[in-house]
Structure formats: C-alpha cells, structure tokens
C-alpha cells in the first residue's frame, strides 16, 4: 500500500507539470493585453517598459520557468517563514497579481476561508442528508419514499445552481425576508446573536450547493446498498438471528460505504467548480469569485495560479480516493 501511494505520488508530478504547461500555453496563446486599460496618453515606449516590468518581454519558456520557481520554490518558503518566523524568502520575487500588485498567494489565503466555510459546510450537509435517504430508499426499494427520493434527486441533477439559487433568493429573501441574499464576509462571530446572523446568511448558499451533492450521493448510496442487500452474507446474518437494524446498519452499510467514500473524495474538487456560480450569485468573495474577476481583468498570474490550485486539488483527491479504496476494501490489491 505504501509503495503504491509513493508510486502514485511520484506519478502525479509529471501529470501536474503537464497540466501547468497546458494552462500556461493556453494563457500565452490568449490575445488579451494587460496593458489594455492603460490610458492612451502613455507613450508607447513607456508602455513597452511597463510590459517588461511585468516580465512579458522574456521568451515563453523563461516566463514558464520563472512561474514554476516562484510557485514551487519561493511560495513554500514564504509559508515556512510564516509558520516558523524564519527569513528564507526575504528579497525573493513572489507570484505577483497584475491587478493589485500584491502576492497572489496572500489574496488566495484571504479568500480561502469563505470558500471553505460555504463549500465545505454544503458538502457535509449534503452528505448527511444523502446517506439516510440512500439507505432507506434501498431498504424499501420501489416504495413511495424510494420513488420520491428518485424524483427529488433527478430534480437535483437537473436544476442548475444558477436557477435554484435565484429561486431561493426570490422566495426566502425577497418574499419571506428570512435570510439575507448577500453573504457578508466581514461579519465576525462574537456571541450568540452574531452566530445566528452567520447561520442565517449561510443557509441559502449552503443549501443550494448541498442539493447537487445530495442528488448525486444519494443515488450512489442507493445503488451500492441494493447491490449488497442481496448478498449471501446478509442472509447468513439474518439467519443467525441478528436484529434487522444490526444487519442493515452494521453489515450492509459498512460494505456499501466503501465505494461511497471514494465517490465523496472524488466529488470534493468538482464542488469547488460549482462554487464559482454559487459564489457569484450570493456575492461570497471566495476563490471562485476571485478567479472570475481576475479573468475579466486579464490578470494572468492570478488565473494561472488559481486554475493550477484547482488542478492540484483534483489530482490529490483522485489519489486519496484510490488509496482509500485500497485501504477500506481488503479485496483490492494494488501491489
């Protein structure tokens, strides 16, 4: 198992390098000009110097190499400095955003908590709703509850978040006035009152994202439970007189959870993608919204870094899913 994990880790390095090259070339091919917003009164030779100051004059492979060094060598040093108070990264050039002229990673770290709160919470809520639905639907297959569950998850698949989000805003914040439609990220939780406010503003974005998660995971849970309920060991467990709750919730559930856990791990990166829309809709200033504004402003280092962070997340969680599958299921042997 350990050798497999190490092999996969080593193999993920060329994958990530290749992805970074693809993203970099895509951005290089793009015709957008970061100097487009500079006033026309600025003379062309000054403009040329400004371009060189941004590092645009250098050949492509040198630009790529510099980005690589900055991202993989200097940024970790900054992180170590931040944690241990050392001065490894002093005087070294970090990945600088063209919009704000501040280091990209600092902005990302500012934005990260909002995204993690909303997205992470929605994922947990979605899973917590989905698992019981899936288990009960499978246990009472073709019952009314099962039919209703199938229908609801079909709806969850089909209604895009930009529509469900708008609908809940119209219903709950415009007509009923229960929840605010804008997520206030400056809000600080100090006491019970402010905690309630925080809960209220989180309900809508979390539920909109959770609907998608629930739809997907409850279907997988149901299918996985159905597969296990007909196995011989279930009959054996019933025959030896175990309580029905023990049969279903201990024996069947534990075996059915193996594929579900990989599905959950695989879904984590994709929920970040879905969060772009939800963040725009509820005006959460998280990572997705940062990517969108950076794109519109032609801020290539920011776009490059953010897209690459998404890629790292996908590759990492793919790896985690595969390793978990091997750890949880003794029938799977990778070596």
């Amino acid at each position, binding site marked *: 198992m350990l050798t497999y994990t190490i092999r996969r880790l080593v193999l993920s390095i060329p994958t990530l390098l290749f992805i970074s090259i693809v993203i970099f070339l895509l951005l290089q091919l793009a015709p957008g000009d970061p100097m487009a917003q500079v006033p026309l009164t600025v003379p062309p030779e000054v403009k040329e110097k400004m371009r060189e100051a941004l590092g645009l004059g250098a050949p492509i492979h040198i630009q790529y190499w510099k980005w690589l060094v900055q991202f993989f060598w200097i940024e970790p040093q900054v992180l170590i400095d931040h944690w241990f108070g050392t001065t490894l990264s002093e005087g070294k050039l970090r990945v600088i955003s063209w919009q704000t002229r501040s280091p990209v990673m600092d902005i990302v770290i500012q934005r990260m908590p909002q995204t993690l709160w909303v997205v992470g919470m929605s994922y947990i809520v979605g899973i917590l709703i989905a698992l019981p639905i899936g288990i009960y639907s499978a246990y009472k297959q073709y019952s009314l509850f099962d039919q209703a569950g199938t229908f609801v998850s079909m709806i969850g698949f*089909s209604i895009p978040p*930009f529509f469900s989000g708008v609908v809940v805003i119209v219903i709950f914040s415009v007509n009923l006035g229960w929840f605010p439609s804008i997520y206030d990220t400056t809000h600080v939780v100090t006491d019970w009152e402010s905690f309630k406010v925080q809960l209220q503003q989180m309900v809508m974005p979390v539920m909109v994202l959770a609907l998608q998660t629930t739809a997907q995971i409850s279907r997988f849970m149901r299918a996985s439970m159905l597969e296990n309920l007909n196995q011989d060991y279930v009959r054996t467990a019933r025959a030896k007189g175990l309580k029905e709750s023990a049969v279903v919730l201990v024996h069947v559930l534990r075996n059915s959870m193996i594929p579900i856990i990989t599905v959950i791990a695989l879904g984590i990166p994709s929920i970040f993608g879905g969060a772009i829309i939800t963040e725009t809709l509820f005006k959460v200033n998280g990572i997705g919204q940062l990517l969108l504004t950076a794109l519109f402003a032609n801020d290539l280092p920011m776009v490059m870094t953010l897209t690459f962070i998404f890629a790292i997340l996908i590759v990492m969680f793919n790896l985690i899913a595969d390793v978990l599958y091997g750890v949880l299921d003794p029938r799977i042997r990778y070596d």
Partner: protein
Amino acid sequence: MTDQRVNAAAAEVEMETFGALKDKEPQKEPRSQWKDVWDQLRKHKGALIGGGFLLFITLFVLIGPWVWRVDPKALDIRNKDLRPIYTLLWDGDAKTLWSRPLGTDNLGRDIMATLIAGGRASLAVGWAAMVLSLVLGTVVGVCAGYFKKLDGILMRVTDLFLSLPILPLLLVAVTLFRQPLRAAFGPEGGMFILIVGVIGITSWMPTARIVRGEVLALKEREFVLAARSIGTKPGQIIRRHLLPNVVSPIMVSATLGLAAAIIAESALSFLGVGFPSDFPTWGKLLADAVPRMEEFPERVMLPGILISVTVLSVNYLGDGLRDALDPRIRGR
C-alpha cells in the same frame, strides 16, 4: 426378449427426442433488437414523458418562429415592462396586453419570441456540443480499444483531461479567445463555434472510457475473429462490426452529454462570458433578468423552468434508455 425390450425402449426415447425437437406451435416472427428496446422503453413512464417533452420543446423552438411571428429583436418602448397575462388572475391592475401573452422586457421585446429564439440557441449549442464530444469520445475510445499501440497513450491523455479543472478552464478559454473568433466568424457565429468547441473538447472523456471498455471486450469475440480471418481490414471491422455493437452505451452517454452541454452553456451565459447581449439564450435571459427579479419574477422563472424541465426530461430519457438498452434488465 430383454434385447427386444431394450430396443423398444430405445426407439421410444428416440421418438421423444425427435418430438421435442419438433415445434409444437408455429414459429414466432423474429424480433429485431430495436423493437425489443422500444417495447422496454415504452414501459418506462418517465422516459416516455421525457422523450415526448424533448420532442415537443424541439418542435416548439423550430416551428415557433413561423407560428409566433414576432421579431424577438424588435423594440417597442411604449409597451415595455408588460406583465404576462396570467398575472391578471391575482392582480387586476397589472399592465398587460393580449398580443403579448408572456409580457415584454425592459426594452419592449416580446418575451415569448425571445424565449423561442433563446431556446433555439441553447438547444443548438447543446446538440452540437454533444455530437462533437460523442464523435471525439468514440474515435478515441475505438482507437484505444482496437489498436493496442495507441491504448497506453490515448488513455493517459484521457486521464490528463479528466484531471483538468473543467469549469475554470471553460471560463479561461471563453474569455481569452472571444475576440479573435468574433473577428473571424462574426459575433454570433464566433461565439457559437467557441462555446460548442470548448464544451465538446472538455466533455468527451467518459464516452471514450466506456467505448474503449466495450471495444476491448468485443474485439475478442468470435465474429470479429471470423471477420479478420476472411481478410477484413481494421477500418472495415470497426465500421461494420464494432461500431454497431457499441451504439447503446454511446446513446446513453449522448443523453447525459446533451443535458450537461445545455447546463454548461447556460452557466457560461449566466456568468457573463457567453453569447453577445443582444443574442438571447435561456441562460442569458435568466442572467439578464436577475437584477430586477423582485419586480418581474416571471422573467427569471420562465427561462429557468425551461432549462430545468428540458434537462430533467433528457435525464429521464437517458435513465429509460439505459434500462431499455441493457439486455440483462430487458425482458424482465
């Protein structure tokens, strides 16, 4: 004496065997596979309703402009911000006009006409992107499954594409390549090519994987061996023997792809990187209506419901097709 008895018994057994081999009733008409599939699909109520609705909505946007002869781009400032006539049910003072059954927008454009035009664009993008991704996926899948030399590299490429962050890359590609394609093919044609291409290129991987798996299993079967033994060329084997046998998984992933493409196009339009603003699509109409949704909720609801119901019906159709095309489930 015993010999005789044994002989008689043997003859009896023989008689019975022949009797069992003979048909006791007239032979039934041979049934084709597609007839079986259709019979099974008919039993799946959701699939039937879904397919019916998809057909209806396709006809609605195709024939609609000839029936509802209002120009979706015609401005009528005097009759702007009309409500749909059904608002009269609960609000007698609402500004409505019988010649504008679904109302008009803030520039006086007829909402019914823009919905039809928007549906045309959305469905056209959906179908085109689906076909593109199917073609790409099938070609990659068949090549990887049939030619052993290509398998490794093609599957590596598929894995790489699967680990690309799709929505961010879609956004990057669309924002960055908007200008040159617009210059080359006009604002609408350029955007159409860009969006269809981008969605198609980023969504072929599941199809390729499924098709590869099927082809790997099929090419070891006897009929392929027989075809090869009489000297059929690989291209011929793929076209005549393999492709007809992988049609069913391709059809199932086609329905999934259509739903995903419609949603992706709407999401891009919603984020403001889709078609130009005077070119309506359902996602665009929804996004444009969001700032004033408190006063005019129907402008958000109508395109939103159309997107959702279309995708829902496609998903149900795919669900039914998957059951109908699976011979293990069929006939039960």
